[in-house]
């Protein structure tokens, strides 16, 4: 039996707000007080969380809410970019932080040394694209289909092409996408979003002769990859915004976008469940090789948060739901099985991956990119 918080009246109000905000995704079906309904709020421990945007749909899932209530918890969540959570966010009022990378998690524990980090979810970084685009990249030797039928993106070849400023219309025989834009992967804003930071980590490794950058080697590596950020122009601050551009505007605006594998699988699952068609037949998921994993850790700041965090990694039903939202968990093999169920081909194994640099080195590179954005241009 979990201890009650003192101000019960306030919590009851909070509970109502959670019901509306968190279950709102299903509003078009009618009633808004779904999963939480009229369950009594007493005996439920209130948990205040802040999460990276890629976990929003999971945290809004009524089944996720319901299972946690059965386990004795009711939560609210705020959404923020991983870098913000790690550096400036005031976590004083929160029980749990759940950014999208381990570097952010490590940084948070530097600010809150008593907090407990728990590895919880795993998502490889992938590139969502389109069949005609993948074929063009194949022509250029930048992508190929593996023996299992999964598209692989040769990250080294991609970087080399991008550094030479290859344009789509320069690819010979290109009748499907004769556009005068550089061949570039779209990312969310590296200054805000973890996925941008993952891209930075991967590219800096390759630009540094296949070595994780440190304080000495980072500046030179960064100079070589800086254009891949700046040429993109104004960026969606968060990853879900970048993915949404891909889904809604398509090839004309976003021929390639860097996302977590989980986002693509999650979206395919929603399509199947709701009879929608967001993932169309010509959309493909490519795996960068070498690639990089986003290790997602929870940071528990209170005792209640610690117990809550533990459930996320031990409760069978919660793990099942995490898998349905595309995440890899401690339950090996479950992710691939589920992906196949919803029609997404994922590789058997992902071994060619690189490590992330130290938090301070990464932060140093991001700050330099920030400065570059602010520097006066020559236009």
């Amino acid at each position, binding site marked *: 039996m979990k201890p009650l918080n003192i101000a019960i009246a306030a919590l009851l109000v909070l509970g109502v*707000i959670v019901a*509306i*905000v968190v279950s*709102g*995704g299903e*509003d*078009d079906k009618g009633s808004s007080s779904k999963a939480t309904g009229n369950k009594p709020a007493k005996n439920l421990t209130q948990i205040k969380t802040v999460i990276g945007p890629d976990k929003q749909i999971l945290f809004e899932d009524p089944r996720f809410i319901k299972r946690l209530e059965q386990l004795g918890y009711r939560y609210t969540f705020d959404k923020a*970019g991983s870098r*913000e959570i790690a550096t400036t966010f005031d976590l004083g009022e929160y029980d749990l932080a759940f950014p999208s990378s381990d570097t952010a998690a490590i940084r948070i524990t530097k600010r809150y040394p008593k907090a407990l980090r728990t590895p919880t979810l795993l998502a490889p970084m992938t590139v969502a694209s389109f069949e005609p685009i993948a074929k063009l990249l194949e022509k250029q030797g930048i992508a190929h289909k593996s023996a299992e039928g999964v598209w692989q993106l040769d990250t080294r070849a991609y970087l080399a092409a991008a550094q030479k400023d290859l*344009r789509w219309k320069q690819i010979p025989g290109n009748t499907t996408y004769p*556009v*005068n*834009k*550089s061949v570039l992967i779209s990312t969310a804003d590296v*200054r*805000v979003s973890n996925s941008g930071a993952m891209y930075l980590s991967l590219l800096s490794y390759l630009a540094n002769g296949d070595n994780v950058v440190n304080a000495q080697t980072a500046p030179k590596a960064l100079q070589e990859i800086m254009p891949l950020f*700046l*040429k*993109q*122009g*104004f*960026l969606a*601050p968060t990853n879900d*915004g970048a993915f*949404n551009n891909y*889904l*809604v*505007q*398509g*090839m*004309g*605006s*976003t021929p390639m976008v860097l996302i977590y594998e989980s986002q693509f699988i999650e*979206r395919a699952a929603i399509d199947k469940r*709701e009879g*929608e*068609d*967001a993932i169309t037949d010509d959309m493909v998921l490519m795996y960068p090789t070498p690639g990089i994993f986003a290790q997602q850790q929870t940071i528990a700041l209170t005792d209640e948060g610690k117990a809550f965090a533990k459930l996320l990694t031990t409760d069978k039903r919660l793990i099942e739901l995490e898998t349905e939202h595309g995440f890899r968990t401690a339950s090996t093999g479950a992710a691939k099985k589920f992906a196949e169920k919803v029609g997404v081909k994922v590789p058997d194994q992902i071994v060619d991956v690189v490590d992330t640099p130290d938090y301070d080195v990464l932060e140093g590179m991001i700050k330099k990119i920030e400065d570059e*954005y*602010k*520097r*006066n*241009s*020559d*236009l």
Partner: protein
Amino acid sequence: MTRLISFITLLAVAALTATGCAGTGTLGGDTEQRSGLKVLAGSELRDMEPLLGDIEKATGVEMYFEYTGTLDGADAIASGTTDAAFGLFANSKYVQLVAQEQGKSVTATTTMRSPVVFGVKESIAKRNGWDKPTAVVTWKDLADQAAAGKLNYAMSNPSASNSGFSALIGVAAATAGDGNALAADKVDNATLKAFFKGQKLTAGGSGYLADEYLKREGDLDGMINYESVILGLNASGDLDEKLTPVYPTEGLITGDYPLVLVDPAHKDEYNKVITYMKTAAFQKKMMDSTHRRPAWPGTQLSDEFPPNLLIELPFPSKLDVVEKLLFAYLDENSRPSHTYYVLDTSGSMADDERLQLMQQAMNNLTGTDKSGTGRFTRFRNNEQITLVAFDDDVDEPEHFTITTKGANGTVQQQIRDRIDGLDADGGTAIYDGLEVAYEQAMVDRKKQPDLFYSVVLLSDGENTDGQDYDGFADSYRDQYAAAKIPTFPVLFGDSNTGEMQDLAKLTKGKYFDGRENLSAIFKEIRGYQ
């Protein structure tokens, strides 16, 4: 829902009671108390008003719109000088760029989309072969036609409005021969200048531009605006000739209409509204009634949208690129303006600091206003200004040509000296003043026919001397109407509202209410010049 009674509203109420004006309620601004949350909105979003009821029904959140141009709204939001709860403009990028500079972040969620397109009259599109779905039309093609004098169009002022700015980026990218984010590449100013030769009408907002287009449809070949505005006009039956939307193939810019949370105290209402606006039910209703594209997966694009692959151009990521492009447009590439300021210096202007308010408003335009909107509304390089001061007599028109950028030129100082030297004394001969301005404009226009001509009239009371309104109206119809020079009357003090409105209608201009904030209105009018 608590109502926010803003300081501005209090001022407005005070101003109205002080002047004894009957307040027709049609004059906009904060003259009425509205209930619900205030949303600063772009002028083309009037078509959303019927949907506010649906949103309220589904979420319990009541909202009302207050319309402004994109830059004015962005400035107010970025500087924290608005009491609005939310903002809804075609893009929030300017707000986000400014916030980034300040190290802040902005909560914004896309709600609907519309690309900026070139709407060309059907007959002209047909003649050029631009109406076929397989047609390949580039910004360069459009620029060539404009330069040759074969494509006269309306486009909103890029420094005030996003649709004009999107077109500016499109043409700049196309002429730079580069589809990437504009950076250090040389922008081809000569081609830009050629393109803007065709811009014959401007306004301070996309919705307002559509209004102005309807007034002058006969003189124009098309309009640059959001696809939704073009499709909406076509469906309305208000056009004499429908417009064919053209999608330039180098790329275009899509407004993604992010709802911005301006006041964090309303975060809960914001979340409710966003959750509802994301639903397929709302997205479909929105698409069908406003002709905008869905912003969220789960809604099929309806048949009225062409199936073309639209190439999206990147928006600049640096604030200074945005500003450089805008200043180049204002000072070098756009058609220069010649503006006639007809200013009342009668005895009543000595009351209530009216003369000082006018002097402040005029001097701000010489570049002393360093705010975001101030910098973009100042008099431009190569612009001509003619001051026509009147009381019971009309002074000799005084002419100035700006020869430098910024506020430090000698000419800008000369204008300030002249304005500061005005004093308030005597009667009011409004229509003689106007006649003098128009006579002068006709002479000037004969020598330089290619400039943007317009008249701004500021008077604080009834006409007491010289000819009356009807006398001027007769002259206008006989001698000046063919030149199509609009008057922008500014309501001020005890203006005869009815006559000012008639004057705007007569000259196909637009009237503005300067009784709350004259400086802001003078800046707003700049978007139309």
